[in-house]
């Protein structure tokens, strides 16, 4: 066990560096930093912050370029559908998982958008690796990414027509798995 890593994690749990930098830079935003997994006995230092959609691009660019934050890696882009979730006020929570390779720190950025036209700015201009994760979120949740260079479906096929990870989508689908040409012994 390397002492440096453990000490750094403990320090981060008490005073997250990135959150302090964000609050100093963007004083008008309520980031509402919270532990990613609420656990009383074990603080992991995994912090999520909330960012309004109109400030998302500026905040993300700051998080990458600021030397104290230096989140140079976008690990993943994913989404949560808060339909019928107790206490939820917004529908879709687009979640960005950031990693700073220099500081060995992680940060999760959440951005809430709503029906009927959920749209967030693309991160492909900041992290090039956002391309395919954003296509996946678009495919499965129907959240559009404004400015994305190639916003096509990536998991399901063209013409699928639905966004299957939305909560109102039935698990068995809407007939997509039955609607396919049949080969018999005579036709094959």
């Amino acid at each position, binding site marked *: 066990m390397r002492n440096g890593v453990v000490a750094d994690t403990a320090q981060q749990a008490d005073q997250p560096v990135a959150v302090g930098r964000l609050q100093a830079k963007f004083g008008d935003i309520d980031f509402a930093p919270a532990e990613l997994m609420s656990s009383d006995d074990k603080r992991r230092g995994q912090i999520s912050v909330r960012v309004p959609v109109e400030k998302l691009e500026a905040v993300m660019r700051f998080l990458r370029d600021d030397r104290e934050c230096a989140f140079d890696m976008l690990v993943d882009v994913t989404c949560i559908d808060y339909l019928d979730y107790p206490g939820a006020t917004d529908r879709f929570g687009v979640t960005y998982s950031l990693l700073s390779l220099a500081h060995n720190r992680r940060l999760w950025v959440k951005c809430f958008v709503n029906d009927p036209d959920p749209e967030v700015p693309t991160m492909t201009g900041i992290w090039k690796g956002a391309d395919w994760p954003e296509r996946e979120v678009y495919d499965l949740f129907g959240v559009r990414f404004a400015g994305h260079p190639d916003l096509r479906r990536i998991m399901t096929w063209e013409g699928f027509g639905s966004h*299957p990870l939305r909560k109102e*989508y039935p*698990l068995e689908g*809407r007939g997509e*798995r039955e609607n396919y040409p049949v*080969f018999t*012994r005579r036709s094959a």
Partner: protein
Amino acid sequence: MGVSDARSGATVGTTGEPFVATTRLDRLVQMIRKYGINWARKYSLWPMPFGTACCAIELMATAASRFDVARFGAEAMRFSPRQSDVLICAGRVPIKLMPVLQRIYIQMTEPKWVISMGACASTGGVFNTYAVVQGIDQFIPVDVYVPGCPPRPEQLLEGIMAIQRIVEQEGVTRSVDRLGLKLTV
């Protein structure tokens, strides 16, 4: 058309043309054509492995030394459908994979048989979701279903032996002739 008892003097399965036995030599030829050729054919099945999930692990175990599908003459696994007789679909098939499976089935030359191995290939199994085909027999013809999740190698061997029984009884008929053919043991 197709198979009937050789002693009745009706058609036999090797080529499908009418064959009326008149002499004892004719009857011998008839027996060889029905039983000899089919006997040779059933021990030379070349499988086309279409392994997509954990069933493929059991398929590989079946081909390996402990269970040794070579004892049944089906050890020549060909990854080219042009060289294969038996399509073994081992594992779940998503809808995006269905065109691939159908293309492979079409590319296989006659005569050809299909084994649907495991619960997923046969019924969709536990994957009752929008993405997974609920049984490949909805979209391609299937001759033998091997139950299990995944089936043990012995069960797959029994499935291959079932194909062997089909080969022995049906012979070299075209697939279209096997449609609606009532087998008698």
